[in-house]
């Protein structure tokens, strides 16, 4: 097990390296002088010179990468000239709404998708199965922002049940906090539900054809126990895997959902940074999201050891 953890950890290093190189290149491949691009239109010549020195632009490209990566590893993501702040400080301010939205969405999606997938697998081929899978295709197809506006229009404007937009910090009380998160989480979770439900259905249907399920049924176990304890448990690994891979979908959706609901999180920060062509912030946000994605999937790989005792690396 220790060897598995070690090899798995080592395997993330090349991935993170490629991510870092790609993010580094975003600025370098932008037409124009990187220092001038970072400084923005209103910068003075001295400011540009200062940035040029801090980036090491007079050195070779690999050396520049080393300087940049070294700083990023120490948490120094550069300075945003548009927002006039350290990028790390900006991210610190925006991280709470995004984390809250992501956690709510994941919890909601798993709580809805896994039972639906199990139900579809259990009634494999029936009308219920077809209806559920039809909804799943629909879920893939409705754009997050269309769904978001549809929900705002229906739930907030016509019915007046929930606030239209905005965000309240957890520190302002749990009630307002959660009321502002319900619609965004539902909006964002639909695609994720569609993905997880499909994989759950496939994995559970496959497990239901196994010999141990026949044995369990033959010895007279109630169907509920057969499906939940025998089939679902054996289907856990693909389900957990897709939850991890789906985080990428989730991150893309966060950017749009935050924009629709005016949530001041990392997604809104990304869009604002892109519109202002604020490259240090763009780089930092992409780096942060990608590293989070890689680490979550690392944790999920490790969780296989606990989910499925048969797995021995």
């Amino acid at each position: 097990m220790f060897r598995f953890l070690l090899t798995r950890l080592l395997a993330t290093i090349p991935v993170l390296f490629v991510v870092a190189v790609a993010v580094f290149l975003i600025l370098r491949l932008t037409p124009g002088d990187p220092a001038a691009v970072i400084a923005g239109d209103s910068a003075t010549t001295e400011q540009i010179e200062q940035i040029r020195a801090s980036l090491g632009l007079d050195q070779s490209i690999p050396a520049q990468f080393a300087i940049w990566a070294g700083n990023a590893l120490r948490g120094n993501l550069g300075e945003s000239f548009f927002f006039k702040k350290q990028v790390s400080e900006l991210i610190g301010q925006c991280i709470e709404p995004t984390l809250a939205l992501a956690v709510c969405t994941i919890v909601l999606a798993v709580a809805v998708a896994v039972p639906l997938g199990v139900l579809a697998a259990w009634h494999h081929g029936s009308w219920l199965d077809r209806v559920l899978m039809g909804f799943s295709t629909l879920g893939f197809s409705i754009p997050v922002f269309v769904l978001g506006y549809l929900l705002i229009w229906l739930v907030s404007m016509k019915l007046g049940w929930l606030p239209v937009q905005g965000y309240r910090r957890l520190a302002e009380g749990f009630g307002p906090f959660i009321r502002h998160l319900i619609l965004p989480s539902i909006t964002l979770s639909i695609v994720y539900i569609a993905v997880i439900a499909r994989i759950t259905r496939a994995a559970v249907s496959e497990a239901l054809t196994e010999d141990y399920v026949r044995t369990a049924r033959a010895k007279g176990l109630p169907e509920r126990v057969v499906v939940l304890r025998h089939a679902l448990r054996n289907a856990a690994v693909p389900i957990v895997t897709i939850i991890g891979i789906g985080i990428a979908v989730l991150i893309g959706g966060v950017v749009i959902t935050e924009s629709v609901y005016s949530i001041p999180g990392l997604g809104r920060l990304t869009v604002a940074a892109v519109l202002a062509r604020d490259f240090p912030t763009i780089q930092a946000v992409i780096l942060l999201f990608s590293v989070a994605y890689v680490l979550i999937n690392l944790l999920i790989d490790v969780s296989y050891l606990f989910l499925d005792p048969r797995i021995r690396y």
Partner: protein
Amino acid sequence: MSEPAATVAEPAEPFLDAPPREVARKLLRNPAVLVGGAVLALLLLIAVLAPWLGTVDPTMLDPGNRDLLPGVAGEVTTLTGETFAHTFWMGTDSYGRDIYSRVLFGGRVSLIVGVAVALLSLAIGMTIGLCAGYIRGLDSVVMRIMDGLMAIPGILLAIALVAMWRASLFTVVVAITIPEIPRVTRLVRSLVLTIREEPYVEAARSVGTPTAAMLYRHVLPNTLAPLIVQGTYICALAILVEASLSFLGVGLPTDIPTWGNIMAEGRLQFQQFPHNVLFPGAFLALTVLAVNMLGDGLRDTLDPRFNERGVRR
């Protein structure tokens, strides 16, 4: 397939595992292919025929007709001074532009982007995947790079690339294509790794077929079915991402009518005039749904081995 006479009798290639007529018959019996294909054909027709479907210039500003509700009848004066009666089936936006005309013309952009991204990412991904799967030395390096690129959430990468290059139809297509390439590459590579062990490939190799001819003649045809399916899903995703970019304000310039752009402008006064967001949103969702249905149907008929799609973005 017209090939030069081979030196040995070559075994029949199992392209799509059945003769074309059989495949066509099976496709026409699949309800998802029929419905998805019909809706898509209709949307394509609408996009092509947009100028003749009772539309006016979708970019024409008309201060006299601002913020009209759907279905209002009125008059339009063209730039040449002609005045004629026009019914604003979907209302107008705050610049007095006819939403009906904008939505119809916007369909062109979506369909062009969807098809272009699908073809481009298939072509590039296929080339890289074939090489990685067939040339041993390349495999691990190429796949590590692809793993790294896949760790960056697709929409974020596209947003950053557009920010680098400034948006035009070409840069938007390229920016959406790049995050898709690793996924196609992975698919092609895994197919190639299976196919290269087949007896007919071994036979061809034993008579000294050059690598390029081998890939083109024996390996490539057998990857087509899953690739067509994958291409459909990429098309659906590309339409969604293009609309998302426009919606966030980082996509195509706002003077081009795209569904995302219409919604981006409409969202500012969504609470008074939801039609500016809901009509293009409905068209967008319908288009993506049709493409996804077509993909599901194609997958079930052409490619029964891959009966569950994994996550697609």
